[in-house]
């Protein structure tokens, strides 16, 4: 899965969970400041990414991710690691 596809799917998940328009989400969008994610929604986002990509994320590390772009990198790393196992 390439990063463009991951980005597209991450944005869809973010739009769904946070109730934000897809066109308002960019790789530079910050979850809290730009997209209005509250702490409970951040936990929901992590769970939604896990289900979307069939991966398990380290929740403490995942909750440190601040932008959509960084989330794409984080998910891509997790997919690669877990595919190799």
């Amino acid at each position, binding site marked *: 899965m390439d990063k463009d596809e991951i980005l597209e799917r991450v944005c869809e998940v973010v739009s769904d969970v946070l109730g934000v328009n897809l066109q308002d989400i960019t790789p530079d969008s910050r979850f809290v400041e730009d997209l209005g994610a509250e702490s*409970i929604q951040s936990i*929901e986002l992590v*769970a939604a990414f*896990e289900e979307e990509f069939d991966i*398990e994320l380290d*929740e*403490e590390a995942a909750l440190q991710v601040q932008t959509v772009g960084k989330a794409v990198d984080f998910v891509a790393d997790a997919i690669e690691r877990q595919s190799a196992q």
Partner: protein
Amino acid sequence: MRIVMFEDADFGRLYPLTYLRPVFELRCGAYSLRRKLQAKFPDSVLHLEMRDALSRVAPEICPDCLLNHQDRLKPDDDILLVNGGAILTAPAQKYAERETVATAPTGEFVWAYLKRETVKKLSAVSARSLASLAARNLPSQNAQDLLIRFPWDLITQNASQIKSDFREFYRPQAEVKLDPRVAVWGEPTNLCVGKGAEIQPWTFIDCREGPVIIESGAIVRAHSSIQGPAFIGEKSYLHEACIREGTSIGPVCRVGGEVEESIIHGYSNKYHTGFLGHSYVCEWVNLGANTVNSDLKNDYTSVSVYLDGQPTDTGSTKVGAFIGDHTKTSIGTLLNTGAVVGIMCNLIAGASVLPKYIPSFCWYLEGRISKGLGLGAALDTARAAMARRGVELTDAMTELIKYTEELTRPDKMEKVKRDRKRAFR
């Protein structure tokens, strides 16, 4: 005679109450099972044997005790071997009349009196194996004592144990000096108030049906009511609380609202309105305002409780919740009848009652079980909560919590994945 109290192989039946403490440290009545045994045999040396996972933290839980000591089975003395879940009810001398093994009606080992020659002959490496060998080799009798087999047994026995502990541990006070605006109904000798306890005006204490014990440093604020038998531990505060019969509140708790036939182990808060009934709450729990648990089904049928992931019929219609250490509930949380909540959970109220079983280290959020913020954040919260009461989260306890997280992770992840699939399908 030496006394050896040990955890048998069934300590897991008492989860989540025994993740962070040995079975014999559970509270029933005013005191722990261990303390009751010590009081019955004050002149005997007591040895305690527990699972290895608890050995580093045990000195913090049972200070001044002999723990997993290498000499506990030394055949230089007769031994009274006692199951850690046992409450011995006969006079002390009855237990050393003759060599015998006493078992529960369900077959579990309760206690055995073994002469030193028998201890030498059986040559066991642990108290648990000694019990097993004794049961196979010695004459047995039916135990007339109590054995705590399941979490709800603690609640069932609590009222009678408060009465029994009152007789055992407390002497009638010649005169309890109270503010004249405090109302006491029943025999004054059924009320015991410790040094420095404060009972504010317009408190009502009903000790007609059983004793009320208020330990030193406790504060009972105005408009509280306490119906005996009841035990209020050291430095606990009641804030306009309605404490009903059969309730034990351990030390340093903050309690308001209604509590009935429940045990709050210690260092926990249920400060505001809400109902807690027929429940056992471990340490460092915070029940948010308007947290309510059900202890009776609407169809009056017997309550089932999840043990080891399986629903188990309690045979009782009145069963509440069993809440592990360091768990927190949000405002307005509704706990189902017979709910089991593991340790270090964070429950955020939803639109309806929560599931009956929530594994340890889980969050309950938006109607499903989730991983939440993770172990690191949970430990930070534990540290902060304990610091508010001047208690340190030690390295030994941190290690035990981490061990428990690993132990319970498969169960947690099974429920997390199941609920996640349902939520994001």
